[in-house]
């Protein structure tokens, strides 16, 4: 059974009151998504892409312009948020300051008139799970950011919701706390096996937490797949450059035919990369497109390498790894190496590219160009 189904979901904000007509006024446009029971799905995109709007529509906090939302088998379009059986852990979903942690976690059940012993049993059950057992008597103001988030999530899951919705729960935490909390969330969701929709703009968070990632831009779903799928097989240029850090190198290229072998060539550069054989059916001499390759798949060749000689524009020693930038035309092409050798600006290296790892994108639309079967 699917945990959550979004069917042709639209959201349009009513702009009639505003003087300025916004051209594309769909915040969410024809969104289709099926999350399996117990799956952890991340909605990922830059700010203003419509991911939070989608979440708010699922929660019932935002009206739906068109489409259907199913939680389990129930059509919830017309249901009030409190009747949708969902748990919310929002970034700004503040705690009630006059209540201690226990009171905050219990608040919802108290409001519903659940018997006292039942509430107490449940709170005691969930507290160790979220590691807030020692915090139950504390007041919200005394908690650290990470602790607040744990209480927040405890409050969301105590009702045993069918669906857990989280909106950037980690964005207020700083580096180390954020990483630690990420691990905790992952373990917790793994334990309670609740279908979860998680909104974030941080691709790393989505990559490390989610079973599946829905990448959204301008209200339109770009790709929906597992982290590995979106990383290795991006649907278009947007996904390719949004996922991964440093981002994929994407360069405009003209393909030339040299004695039956196709090569990527680049303006103002003598770099040439062989086109993988599988693309021969779609390319031709003089074909213009964009080529993408991840920095991990660009290598430094040995002394007898066939690669093109290139001058190093930037060399960054990051301790764990080293990043090298090479100018290809006016684009800085990055490569990552764990090789211990120290280079400096101006050194010449042989550049090799794992040809089979290159992707082709349409020069106009940015859509992926795939080989024909």
């Amino acid at each position, binding site marked *: 059974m699917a945990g959550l189904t979004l069917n042709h979901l639209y959201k349009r904000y009513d702009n009639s009151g505003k003087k300025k007509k916004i051209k594309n006024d769909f915040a969410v446009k024809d969104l289709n998504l099926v999350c399996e029971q117990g799956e952890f799905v991340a909605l990922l995109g830059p700010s203003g892409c419509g991911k939070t709007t989608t979440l708010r529509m699922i929660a019932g906090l935002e009206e739906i312009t068109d489409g259907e939302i199913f939680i389990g088998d129930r059509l919830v379009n017309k249901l009030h948020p409190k009747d949708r059986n969902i748990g919310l852990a929002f970034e700004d979903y503040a705690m009630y300051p006059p209540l201690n942690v226990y009171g905050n976690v219990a608040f919802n059940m108290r409001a519903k008139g659940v018997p006292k012993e039942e509430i107490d049993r449940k709170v005691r059950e969930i507290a160790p799970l979220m590691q807030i057992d020692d915090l139950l008597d504390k007041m919200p103001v005394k908690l650290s950011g990470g602790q607040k988030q744990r209480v927040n999530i405890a409050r969301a899951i105590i009702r045993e919701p069918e669906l857990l919705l989280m909106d950037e729960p980690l964005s207020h935490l*700083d580096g180390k706390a954020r990483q630690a909390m*990420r*691990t905790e969330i*992952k*373990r917790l969701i*793994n334990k309670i096996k609740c279908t979860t929709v998680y909104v974030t*703009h*941080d*691709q*790393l968070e989505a*990559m*490390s*937490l989610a079973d599946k990632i829905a990448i959204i831009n301008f209200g339109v779903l770009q790709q929906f797949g597992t*982290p*590995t799928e979106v*990383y*290795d097989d991006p649907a278009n240029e947007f996904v390719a450059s949004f996922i*991964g*850090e*440093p*981002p994929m190198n994407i360069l405009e290229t003209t393909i030339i035919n040299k004695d039956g072998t196709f090569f990527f060539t680049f303006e103002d550069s003598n770099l040439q990369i062989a086109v993988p054989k599988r693309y021969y059916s779609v390319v031709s001499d003089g074909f213009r497109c964009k080529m993408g390759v*991840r*920095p*991990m798949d660009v290598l430094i060749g040995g002394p007898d390498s066939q690669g093109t000689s290139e001058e190093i*524009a*930037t*060399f*960054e*020693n*990051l*301790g*764990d790894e080293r*990043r090298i*930038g090479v100018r290809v035309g006016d684009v*800085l092409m*990055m490569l*990552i190496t*764990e090789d*211990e050798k*120290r280079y*400096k*600006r101006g050194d010449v290296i042989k550049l090799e590219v794992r040809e089979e790892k290159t992707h082709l994108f349409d020069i106009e639309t940015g859509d992926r160009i795939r080989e024909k079967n």
Partner: protein
Amino acid sequence: MARIQLENVKKAFGKVQALDGITIDVKDKEFFVLFGPAGAGKTTILNCIAGIAMPEEGVVKFGDEVMNLTDPAHRNVAMVFENYALYPQMTVYDNMASALRSKLYKASEEEIAERIKWAAKTMKMENLLERLPSQLSNGQKQRVAMGRALVRTPNVFLMDEPLAHLDAKLRNSMRTELKEMQANLGSTCIYVTHDFMEAMALGDRIAIINKGKIVQIGTGDEIYYMPCNEFTAQLMGEPQINIFEATVAATNDGFDAKINVCGEEITLALPKDDNVYSKIKEQGMVRCDIGIRPQNVKYSFEPKEGYFKSTVYSYESIGNKSVIVAECGDYQLRMIAPNGLNVEIDSDVYIKLEMDHIILFDFESKEYIVRYDEASFIALAASKEEE
């Protein structure tokens, strides 16, 4: 352009001792990074150099000149503030021209225009000159703040976390650009950051600051490979270095380290390394802390010779690679793995530590004692110095 020296600088805010005897010597044209956790006093050091903060004790010298009593306007420094501090009522152009229009650093309008044109080109912001700061994104504001400093020819550039407010991706790409620009800067630069990648990538030398004191000064490689204590070791590297306790016991021809994994004692042979062995003998070492970087921890999901058993605490991607965290009782072990593995949480994992990459720390003081292959890393660090 000048050499910047601070000698035993102290500064307190009320009862808080923000700086507690800071001594640094920044060479002319050096890119010097001040690195440490939030609240360590890094910004206060910059403020003392700029003259915004007055140290209670100690000397601030530019070249041979003592600057303690010189006001900020007369020190001829260019500063990039963490919150950019752009003048909101002025266009980007006027912001950048501000210093060159002051009485002290006056330049003709033609010269100003020329300098701004150059700086705007360097920072790739030619199209922003007519805008107001409120119309800029954070990344653009950061460029403007840098550009405003670049138009000047100061004694020193002071940069206070200029990339901190950008999101991870923009930060990394800006760092790369800054690195490329650095060569053209040709000027002394003191750069504050709490991001170890920025520190490593940009700094000719790095000073680690904690609680108002200097912990270590050295090149990136020195600090990364030979951290002076566990605090420094933990600051450098992502994911963090693994540090755990061990007892050392002599064997027939060498030494063993015994560590505790989930209540079980595991014996690991310490490979032969004259330098390490002599340090162990010298100290009569019984207990120590072992530091090992995640890339030197190997894993297997099948039992294997020389591997010990543990359970997976978490498995998550950190970008182009992933981290497996294994539960070992009192501590956890982080190790690098490729993306896209099918790893069940709480399943078994078998671990091998590459003992010829470890760093030994003192059990009590947490100070650096010795590491394997020390000589070659000293040579590596020195090769950088020569440049």
